[in-house]
């Protein structure tokens, strides 16, 4: 009876795993056998790494490995976005968790509101803005836009994490001789490290997966981010799905690695992220 029950549990979970894995395998087999669409069982019929190597080892006239440069640009943008977003959001989230101040509720509502407005509407005004400060066609401009887009959610997320830390801890540090800033840096921040990592991961993903703004703002191929590069395999008349799938794998791997690395923190690191007024 017990064995049966446990088998049942495993069967349910395994079917969920199959549901989760199926499309991923489908993309993988498409990438490995671009000329033969995968059937019911996503397994490459005639596996070859041609598409993958064509995508990854693409060179321009000067022999530069474009895709590698673009991967570098993407990584740079994504990591910088995560860093800047955390840098901006952390102190604000801390203040929103710890201090009472005039305008606190209003600013929380404003932050929440930014999450509700469809972002595409802001593309052209943003273009003009970045152009005015000379950051069009510049990875820095992209980082700035992504980071600020990621800030509101990061603030909610981190505020929840700070709420979970007893005030006693920083008060102890302050009685021990720390300034508010030292208590924040030496005691509070190290304690919320898991939440910081998870928040950084989300900011990273914001930048890593974004297409429309990157395609609009960037005009030099060597600094294209990967989603823009990928999109080029889906043209007006021709779609090179094998190449797209191959690129998709390359794009997904770093995020998967980060997820794997952070998955322990993901559970719990998220619960705190609340939107409670």
């Amino acid at each position, binding site marked *: 009876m017990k064995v049966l029950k446990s088998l049942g549990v495993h069967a349910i979970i395994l079917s969920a795993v199959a549901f989760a894995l199926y499309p991923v395998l489908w993309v993988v087999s498409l990438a490995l056998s671009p000329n033969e669409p995968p059937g019911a069982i996503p397994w490459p019929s005639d596996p070859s790494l041609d598409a993958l190597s064509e995508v990854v080892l693409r060179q321009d006239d000067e022999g530069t490995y474009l895709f590698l440069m673009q991967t570098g640009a993407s990584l740079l943008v994504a990591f910088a976005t995560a860093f800047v977003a955390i840098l901006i959001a952390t102190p604000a989230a801390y203040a929103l968790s710890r201090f009472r101040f005039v305008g606190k509720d209003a600013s929380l509502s404003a932050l929440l509101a930014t999450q509700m407005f469809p972002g595409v509407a802001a593309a052209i005004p943003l273009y003009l803005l970045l152009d005015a400060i000379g950051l069009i066609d510049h990875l820095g401009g992209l980082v700035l836009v992504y980071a600020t887009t990621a800030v509101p959610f990061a603030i909610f997320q981190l505020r929840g994490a700070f709420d979970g830390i007893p005030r006693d801890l920083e008060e*102890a540090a*302050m009685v021990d*001789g720390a300034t508010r800033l030292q208590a924040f840096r030496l005691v509070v921040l190290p304690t919320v490290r898991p939440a910081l990592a998870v928040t950084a991961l989300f900011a990273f993903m914001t930048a890593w997966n974004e297409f429309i703004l990157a395609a609009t703002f960037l005009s030099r191929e060597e600094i294209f981010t990967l989603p823009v590069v990928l999109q080029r395999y889906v043209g007006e008349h021709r779609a090179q799905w094998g190449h797209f799938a191959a690129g998709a794998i390359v794009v997904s791997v770093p995020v998967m690695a980060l997820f794997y690395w952070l998955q322990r923190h993901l559970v719990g690191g998220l619960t705190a992220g609340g939107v409670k007024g």
Partner: protein
Amino acid sequence: MLAGPVTTKPDGNALALADVRKQFGETTVLKGIDLAAEDGELVVLVGPSGCGKSTLLRCLAGLETPDHGTIRIGERDVTRLPPKERDVAMVFQSYALYPHLTVRRNLAFGLELRKTPARTIDKRVTEVAGMLGLEALLDRYPRELSGGQRQRVAMGRAIARRPSLFLFDEPLSNLDAALRTEVRIEIKRLHHQLRTTMVYVTHDQEEAMTLADRLVVLNGGVVEQQGPAIDVYREPATRFVGSFLGSPAMSFLPAEAKEGTLTVGDATFDSESAHRGPCTVGLRTHDVVVDPDGPLTLEVRVVETLGHATHAHGVVEGHPFVARLHGDQRPAPGDEVRLRPVYVHLFDPESGARIRR
């Protein structure tokens, strides 16, 4: 290093509070606290929850700024100083150990902040660890410790700093009863060893009585009474203080005082008080003795057997009453026991103030 105004008013007090007031929004938590402690004294702030004792402690630590009044530690007016400049150490109810640091680093944290030389830090940590028996735990993280061990680390962290004033915020409330008594004695011992002024907040009257050199009873944001613990116990200044100290609590009976006698309902007994008119009689459990001719009749409802004594809970003249009997006397519920008062506290029925003889 010591910024802030320095007053030169040598009255020898280690700690002096004058008319300290604090308000949170609409609620007034401290309504003008005056308090003084001599150097090396262990001051216990006791009171029911919400009485303002924790807020007062936080004002001492610098975690809250009073709206009004002054706080002096030693010779310095610290009312507006941030915590780091007050040279105080605090033990929190939750211990507030830094979860990301080992016990050793927890103990050293305050010293590191003050840029103490590494050798001195090492020496102090070893010394404190020895004092509290933490040697074997130095490289563990707080999450790997038991409740009692965490409590010791919290105290150790305060001691390592060698502050001029220790603050304890209900440090024993998260421990089980046996451990609580043990640590209580430990604190007493440390106080003797260190000879530093300590302010200790608790809501537990027994803890307060056993620890205090000077007992301060707070209620509703005002000091009801302060003084040596035994004096406060013996001569409670108000009905509240009487009821708060001692367990089981003091019983109260409405009475009428006449020439040499007190009348409670149908019962009358002798009194030495000069007071005349209505009053409230306060009787601690041990202020009555069993006497077949005693004026008071206790209708017993519940009996608690402690072995060395028996607590008889019941009603006297329609009012709840507890008497402490000898361990050999064990009445059954429903029995009537005649009692004779041997010591009587009198309180004003209106204000609750003690009626002096």
